[in-house]
C-alpha cells in the first residue's frame, strides 16, 4: 500500500514539473544520441539558444546515452506526441533508419542532423563533410612541413577515434588522400584512443618512447590532440612538434580556446549543423509552401591563432 502511495506522490511531482501551461505550443522534439560528448552538448546548447528566441516553440531534448535501443524508444515516444518538427542526431545509421521512417511516414517533418541513416527517411539531412576536413588537415600538414624543411618530408603521428565510426574513417582517409602523394611524409605511429583525452595521453606517451623525432601530431578530435600535447609536455618535447585537432568547439575548454592558447597549431571546425537545422526547421514550421532541399552540406573552417578570436565571436 505504501508503495502505491509513494508512486502517487511521484506522480504529482511529475505533473508539477511539466510545462503544460498556457496555449499549446509548437513542440520541437530533438533526439540527441549522446549528451555527454562536448560536441553534442554544444549542439544542445546552441539549439536551446536559437529556439529559445521563438516564444511559441517548446523544445524537448532526449538523450539516448549512446544506445540505439534507447534512441529508438525515445523517438517512438516522440511520435506518440506528434511534434511539429522532429530533429534526430542518429547514434548509428542502420538502427535508426526504420524508426525515423515511421515518423516521416506519419507526416512529421524530420531533420536528420550530422549523421546519415541508411535510407532517406527524412525531410532534410544537414551534414558536414569529414572527408573534406581530413583533406584540409592533410594539406595543412604538407604546407607546414614544406615550410619547415623546404620540402614535404617529416614524421607524423595520428591518434584515431573509435574504429568503425564514420567520422573516424573519413577524417583518417581524407588526410591519407593528400598525404599519400608525398612518400617522404611518413606516418610513423598510429594509435587508437577512442576520442578520449586520457587514452590519447597514454598512447602518445608510447609513441614518444618509440619515436625519437616527431614533427606533427594529428588527433582526429581536439581532446585527443590535447592529450598528446600533455604527454609530450611531460617528456619536455612539446616544442619539437605541432598538434592538430578537429572539432573546433567554441567556449571554455573547446578547441578554439586551445588554439588561442597556443596548445594546438590549428583545428578544423566540425560544424554543429545546428544553425542550419534551426533555420530550415523554422521555415518548415512557419512557411507552409517551403520546400527544403534533401541535403545541406556545411563547410568546415580552419582555426589558426590568427583567426581564432573572430571565429569564437561569431559562434556566440
Amino acid at each position, binding site marked *: 500500500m505504501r*508503495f502505491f502511495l509513494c508512486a502517487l506522490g511521484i*506522480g504529482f511531482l511529475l505533473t508539477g514539473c511539466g510545462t503544460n501551461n498556457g496555449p499549446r505550443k509548437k513542440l520541437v522534439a530533438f533526439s540527441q544520441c549522446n549528451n555527454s560528448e562536448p560536441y553534442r552538448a554544444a549542439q544542445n546548447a546552441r539549439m536551446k539558444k536559437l529556439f529559445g528566441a521563438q516564444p511559441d516553440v517548446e523544445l524537448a531534448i532526449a538523450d539516448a*546515452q549512446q544506445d*540505439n535501443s534507447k534512441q529508438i524508444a525515445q523517438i517512438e515516444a*516522440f511520435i506518440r506526441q506528434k511534434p511539429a518538427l522532429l530533429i534526430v542526431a542518429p547514434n*548509428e545509421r*542502420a538502427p535508426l533508419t526504420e524508426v525515423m521512417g515511421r515518423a516521416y511516414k506519419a507526416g512529421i517533418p524530420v531533420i536528420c542532423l550530422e549523421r546519415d541513416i541508411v535510407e532517406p527517411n527524412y525531410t532534410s539531412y544537414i551534414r558536414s563533410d569529414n572527408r573534406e576536413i581530413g583533406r584540409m588537415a592533410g594539406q595543412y600538414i604538407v604546407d607546414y612541413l614544406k615550410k619547415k624543411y623546404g620540402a614535404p618530408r617529416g614524421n607524423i603521428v595520428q591518434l584515431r577515434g573509435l574504429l568503425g565510426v564514420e567520422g573516424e574513417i573519413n577524417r583518417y582517409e581524407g588526410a591519407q588522400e593528400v598525404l599519400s602523394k608525398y612518400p617522404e611524409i611518413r606516418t610513423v605511429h598510429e594509435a587508437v584512443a577512442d576520442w578520449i583525452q586520457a587514452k590519447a595521453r597514454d598512447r602518445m606517451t608510447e609513441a614518444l618512447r618509440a619515436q625519437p623525432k616527431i614533427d606533427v601530431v594529428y588527433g582526429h578530435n581536439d581532446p585527443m590532440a590535447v592529450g598528446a600535447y600533455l604527454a609530450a609536455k611531460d617528456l619536455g618535447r612539446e616544442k619539437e612538434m605541432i598538434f592538430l585537432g578537429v572539432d573546433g568547439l567554441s567556449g571554455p575548454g573547446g578547441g578554439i580556446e586551445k588554439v588561442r592558447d597556443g596548445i594546438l597549431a590549428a583545428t578544423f571546425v566540425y560544424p554543429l549543423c545546428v544553425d542550419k537545422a534551426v533555420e530550415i526547421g523554422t521555415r518548415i514550421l512557419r512557411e507552409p509552401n517551403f520546400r527544403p532541399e534533401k541535403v545541406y552540406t556545411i563547410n568546415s573552417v580552419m582555426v589558426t591563432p590568427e583567426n581564432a578570436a573572430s571565429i569564437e565571436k561569431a559562434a556566440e
Partner: protein
Amino acid sequence: MSRLRKLKSVLGLAGIILVAILASPQASDGSNIFLQAGNLTDVLRQMSVIGIIALAMTYVILTAGIDLSVGSILAFATCVTGMIVTRPAAPGGRFTQAALAVGIAMAASALLGAANGAVISVFRIQPFIVTLASMIGVRGLAKWLTRNENIDIGFGSDAAASFANFVNQKAVVVGTFAALAVIFWIILDRTVFGRYVRAIGDNEKAGRYSGLPIRSVKIAVYTLSGLLTGIAGVIYAAENHQGNPNAGIAYELDAIAAVVIGGTSLMGGSGSIAGTIVGTLIIGVLTNILRLRNVDSNVEMMVKAVIIVLAVAIQKNEKAE
C-alpha cells in the same frame, strides 16, 4: 507468503500505471497518449530485450549468483546473427539461412553461459568474478569477430532484411517475451529443477547435505542465462538492423535492477518470475511516462534511482512486519 509479496509489487505497478495515466499528456484529439494501444505496445516491445534477459537472471540470482556477462553476450549474439544472416546466398534459401543464424547465435550464447557455469561450479570461483571476466572477454570476442565494425542488415529484400523485418514485428518480440516468461514461470514453480534453483540459493551447504545436484543445476542456470541473452541478442539485431559489438553496455545492470525491483533477493533463495515481470514493467512504464512528459534524461536517471531503492526498501519493510 510469497503470494502476498507478489501482490505488493503488483500494487506498485498499479500505482505507477495510475500515475502514468494521470501524468500523461493529451493528444490533439484529447485522448490520453499513454493509454493509446500503440503506446502501450511500444512499452512492451521496448522492455522485451531486458525482460528476456531478466527472466534467466532471476534464476541466476535465486541461486545466490550473478551474471555480469549478459551485456557482452548480447553483443556477441547480435554479431553472430548479423554475420550469418548477411552472408551472400546460402544454400537452402532465405528461411534456412535466417533459422541457421538464429540457431547458431542462441547455441553459441548458451555455450558461453555454460562456460560461465562450469568455471563457477567446478573451480568454485565467485560468480561475480567469473562473469566479470567473461563480460570483458566476450566483449573482446565480439569486437574481434567483427573487427570492430557494425554488421549492417539492409532494408532490401534479401535474407538479412526479411529476417530483420520478420523478427522486428511487435507481435513477434512481445510474443517471444511472453512465451519465455510463461515457460520460466512454470519451470520455477512446477519442476524439480525450479525447486533446486531456490534451494541452492537459500542454503547451498544444506543442498549438498541433501544430495542435490548442485554442480549441474548451476551450470544449467548460467546456460539458460546465456541462451536467453542469445535470444534477446537476435531480437536486438533485428530491431536495430545490425550486429553491433558495442551493443548492450550496462544491460546487465538494467536486468539486475528489474529482478531486484521484482522483489528477488540478491542473497538468493527468495524471489519469483512474476516479480521480475512486474519489475520489468515498472521500469518500462516509468521510462515511457518520463519520456512522454519530456523529462530531462538526467532527471530520469535520478527518478529511476529513487524508484529502485524505494521498491526494494518497501518490500523489505513489509516482509519484516
